């Protein structure tokens, strides 16, 4: 595609496109740059200037402060662990379940699909799930942050549809070669699905990384809090009765420290996408045979 011949109109389009996307890129990234700049600024500057990209007197004070205790480091460890293991579990469960569901002539497929769809729309809510997790003995366990949300029905359905689009010919060819269904799945389907795998690895990782609510419910031991729960604790402004707020609320860290925690909690996961991007081009087959 890169070496395609181009018309003058096409060239105008290219220039326009480069500029437009450049502007969009800037508009989306600038506020985050402000947060990064703010994390290196003094609080006086943050209260005086409402928006800036370069601090006048850069300082590492905020970062020194947040790393002066183990809390942030511990929580990063929890987040990394839960994200890695959780994503692995989720991907295994999602892929193994999506594949059989993509085989159209399987008996009982529709029953299972209805089951999945129904659970996507209806749920028992927070309390029954909490009671279940507790009776499974998962309280204060990292598994409580992983298992209750291990399969996202939304993701499952999309992966299933991706599998469905893979050409039947391939599957039949592999069967003639003597592969069983599982062999076909493992040796033919998965390697062809790299963009899908990369996409959903990203989706699940970001989900696990960003989630604080599971931890809020299931983790009582504060040494196991993930970074997002710490962040939540710092940035949330209680909505009502500010006048009745405990003075302890105001003793909480200053603005620059909050921004520094945002940076620490966000930057690691931001690097995942560029890393996965290269896999997006590997599974060239999706959609190709159909055309």
């Amino acid at each position, binding site marked *: 595609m890169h070496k*395609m011949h181009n018309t003058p*109109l096409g060239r105008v*389009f*290219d220039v326009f496109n*480069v500029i*437009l*996307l450049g502007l*969009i*890129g*800037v508009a*989306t990234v600038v*506020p985050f740059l*402000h*947060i990064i700049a703010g994390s290196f600024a003094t609080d006086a500057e943050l209260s005086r200037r409402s*928006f800036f990209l370069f601090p006048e007197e850069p300082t590492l004070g905020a970062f020194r402060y947040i790393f002066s205790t183990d809390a942030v480091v511990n929580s990063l460890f929890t987040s990394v662990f839960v994200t890695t293991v959780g994503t692995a579990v989720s991907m*295994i*469960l999602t892929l*193994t*379940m999506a594949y059989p*569901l993509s*085989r159209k*002539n399987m*008996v*009982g497929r*529709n029953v*299972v*699909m209805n089951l*999945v*769809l129904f*659970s*996507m729309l*209806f749920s*028992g*809510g927070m*309390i*029954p*799930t909490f009671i*279940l997790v507790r009776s499974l003995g998962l309280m204060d366990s990292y598994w409580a942050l992983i298992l209750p949300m291990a399969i996202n029905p939304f993701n499952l*359905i999309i992966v299933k549809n991706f599998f*469905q*689009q893979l050409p039947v010919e391939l599957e039949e060819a592999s069967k003639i070669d003597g592969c069983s269904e599982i062999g076909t*799945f493992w040796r033919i389907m998965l390697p062809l699905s790299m*963009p*899908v795998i990369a*996409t959903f690895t990203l989706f699940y990782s970001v989900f696990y990384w*960003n989630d604080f609510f599971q931890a809020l419910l299931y983790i009582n031991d504060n040494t196991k809090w993930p970074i997002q729960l710490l*962040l939540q604790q710092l*940035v949330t402004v209680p*909505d*009502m009765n500010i006048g009745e707020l405990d003075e302890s609320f105001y003793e909480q860290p200053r603005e620059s420290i909050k921004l520094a925690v*945002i940076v620490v909690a*966000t930057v690691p996961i*931001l690097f995942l*996408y560029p890393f996965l991007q290269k896999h*997006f*081009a*590997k599974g060239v087959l*999706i*959609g190709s045979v159909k*055309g």
Partner: protein
Amino acid sequence: MADKAITTAAGAKIIPNVMTKKQRIKRDKWLYLLLIPGLIYFIVFKYIPMWGIVIAFQDYSPFLGVFESSWVGFDHFKFFFTNPDFIRLFRNTFLLALYDLIFFFPAPIIISLLLNELRISWYKRTVQTFIYVPHFMSWVIIASMSYVFLTTSGGIVNELLEQFVGRKFNFLSSPEWFRPMIIGQIIWKEVGWGTVIFLAALAGVSQEQYEAAIVDGAGRLRRMWHVTLPALRPTIIILLILRLGNFLDTGFQQIYLMSNALNRSVADVFDTYVYFIGITQGAFSYSAAVGLFKSVVGIVLILGANHFAKKMGQEGLF
């Protein structure tokens, strides 16, 4: 013996319908095995807690539990539907959801198409990475920045508008700007994240198709229209159907943070209403009832859309 077996296998392949259910199940046994872990997950973590739905028909007291709490039938639903605010809440929720569908839903598709046309790969990758950054910013931060940018007292956007257009706009306080502002924020925050899945789908479009299109004399736009977009179509349809399933879900936090006394008439939605009733006031049963109502609307929409898609010859959800 061997020959016979092969014939049977081949025969079954050619006319699979001849196989009985039992035979098919036996044939697919390995597939069922793959299915089991996921199925166990759904039964344990999704279906066992389903008993929670019944609290919508109870006066649920957490302390008494589901067996001891008293039953009230459809009282909560009646109270909800006869609430003088119901029409307004429904209207606000519906309009926001509709705007979201019309303006936000296509945005990532358009951006993906444009990104796909970028030829400089480092530039493409950089833009991709930049536009997905806002997905990671919390609404608390975005709300506070929106105020700083948009306020009529010294906000940079209004300062610029005053210079170039000659007047200020009450983005934050006027009811007519509320929905555009909310949708604008959503587009800004989520458009890049939304492109991820489309770009993954585009990774599969083969070069031959583009080349064939060029041979046919198709220009850039026609190639986008006739090659790229069709490649995205199955993904678009699935996402659209799934989106309809939670049609009435609006982002609670965002709306809560952006609403105020002057725009509340359009800002009150089911989610903000349920938040106050459910969480801050602890009315579990009532919020469960409202949630159930939203789910029913969702399932009607999703089944309708799925049926429609199949009728149009598209691949539906299943």
